[in-house]
């Protein structure tokens, strides 16, 4: 099939944003990296299942697991995991006391799994 040149990949805001590649790059630079993934949602939630956030030991952030309401708490857990704690499943929701603190404004419930990238 005759075809034109394959131009450089266009960065996209959707699935094509490659956080895993970025996580691997940060590891290769010698940084500790944690990966947070939305694994379940109920009701309205700003980011769907599979959405991810990566954070490293210099608190560089990429991606998101919510509209910004729970990222702080997730990063807090990520720091513990980068310091050697085991992976952890976090749950945020309106009935949850922590959610009042961090304020899941949309009123949904979301489970986020946080793990280290070895």
């Amino acid at each position, binding site marked *: 099939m005759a*075809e*034109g040149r394959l131009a450089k990949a266009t960065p996209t805001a959707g699935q*094509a944003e490659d956080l895993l590649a970025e996580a691997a790059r940060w590891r290769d630079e010698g940084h500790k990296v944690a990966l947070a993934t939305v694994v379940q949602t109920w009701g309205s939630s700003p980011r769907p299942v*599979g959405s991810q956030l990566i954070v490293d030991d210099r608190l560089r952030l990429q991606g998101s697991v919510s509209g910004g309401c729970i990222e702080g708490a997730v990063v807090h857990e990520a720091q513990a995991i980068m310091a050697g704690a085991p992976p952890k499943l976090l749950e945020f929701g309106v009935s949850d006391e922590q959610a009042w603190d961090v304020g899941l404004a949309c009123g949904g419930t979301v489970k986020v*799994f946080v793990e280290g*990238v070895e």
Partner: protein
Amino acid sequence: MKRDILDRLQKARAEKRPTALVTDLTDGRQFLQVENSGSGELKLTPAQQAAVAEALAADRSGPLPEAPDLFVHVYNPPLRLLVVGAVHISQALVPMAQIAGYEVVVVDPRKAWANEERFPSVRLVDDWPDEAMRALAPDQRSAVVVLTHDPKLDDPALDIALNSSAFYVGALGSRKTHAKRLERLREAGLGDDALARIHAPIGLAIGAKSPSEVAISIMAEITQVLHRVPPLVRQPQPEAAQ
């Protein structure tokens, strides 16, 4: 996540192979399924492997129904948009679809239209649409839009799209143009079920006028069909009411 799993996952994604990563949420152990074979620290029963294959086919990430501690993250190859016609609307549609995460290919044998100056960052195919479409082989993660307004380019592309499992097939043209098109395609041997799959006039009825607005309405309709949202009832167009 073990580095070995991460590297194998990235390799499989780069090769555009359907891949699923299964994580045990109680301890973080993982299992990587690439197409039909899987391996990892985590062991799955045959029933769980079947459920993972089902999640891949449905393109749905989430906990396994029978084992909610196991989270399946589906990494399917990107959605594709095959655009027939390197026209003005396509110049707006291509970057919009790319931003939405689609891998886009533009098919048009006319060099005056399909060139890098007009389409700087997309794959261009200059074969005749039937040959090009056969090679591109639309699958259930592909959308096809035909926009040339020229039956000798549009019709062969539609013929192949309608005989494929493309999740969306749309064609530019007014109701009148489309009625004539249906006649031609029926004569060419396409059945009513196949013809009913064509979204025409293309795009959601949002009053689009400029090429970029038409591109928005096309992208909106593709999104609606992708997520299987029932279409809104179309209001009569103002022109038709007069």
